[in-house]
């Protein structure tokens, strides 16, 4: 161990806080305490949306499985089963639902994380 280095770094001069420091901290703390608590994320209200999304996803998978087992032939570069699934998806607007859910979920999470 370097005694000289130890001596220099362990004898660092202390600084004296300004007289207003404690008052400033307490003002900030009181300001913080008087600020209303952030509104919690409405998970319960969002639950139906998640349920719809889960049902739609399940329906998507079920339709895909049925189409696959029905022997949908691979007729081109894209298997027919996927074409059918995409048609069904478009018909019920599943894509838009998913996009809307993701678009609302991500910014909400970002705001919550920041707070």
């Amino acid at each position, binding site marked *: 161990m370097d005694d000289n280095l130890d001596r220099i770094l362990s*004898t660092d001069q202390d600084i004296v806080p300004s007289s207003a420091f404690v008052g400033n901290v307490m003002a900030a703390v009181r300001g913080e305490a008087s600020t209303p608590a952030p509104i919690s994320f409405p998970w319960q209200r969002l639950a139906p949306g998640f349920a719809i999304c889960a049902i739609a996803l399940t329906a998507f998978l079920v339709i895909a499985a049925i189409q696959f087992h029905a022997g949908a032939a691979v007729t081109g570069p894209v298997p027919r089963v996927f074409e059918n699934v995409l048609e069904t998806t478009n018909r019920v607007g599943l894509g838009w639902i998913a996009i809307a859910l993701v678009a609302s979920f991500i910014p909400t999470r970002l705001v919550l994380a920041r707070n």
Partner: protein
Amino acid sequence: MQPPDSRCGLTRGETILGASDDQVDVERVLAGDIDAFEFIVRRWHRPLINLAYRFCRDTGRAEEMAQEALLRAYRALNQWRKDAAFSTWLFALSTNVYRSELARLPAKAISIEEAGELEDMRAADGPLEAEDRDRAVRKLVLTLPTKYRDVVVLFYFHEMDISAAAKSLHLPEGTVKARLSRARELLRSKLPHVLTTPKVREI
């Protein structure tokens, strides 16, 4: 964790009382008595400001960082698990705040004049003004890579207590020892004429 010492103007006897005082004040704050937090601030602000100062070497900024640390401590007071001393928790939290602040806005780099002084010291054969040399060495710590700087700052702040430094940094003691050793090598390589040759000895 090191209890408050002469840095915050408390005697050893007051230190022993301080631990239970902290718990009482924390419980009061959590029960809604915000004014009780002022006792915590008064008890700990000096060591927290001085720790911040060692990270940035700027009095004004040290106070700002310490204020932020105390505000974060207030917000997170209910997260203090009483299995560790309040001071251990507070210093670890503050260290995190200081490191984040310095990552966001690094401490002022050594100026050209100061760099010149350091170069002079490098080449100097004669005795240096002790105060200037010591100040330069302390400033040089801030030029170390972050992981070495943090270990050096915490180790000497905690009066060369490896365990306390390790707790503040949430690192194993072995890691702290290894980084400290490397940091010393780096400092010695920067100022070979100022710092004596190391003796092989256990920390």
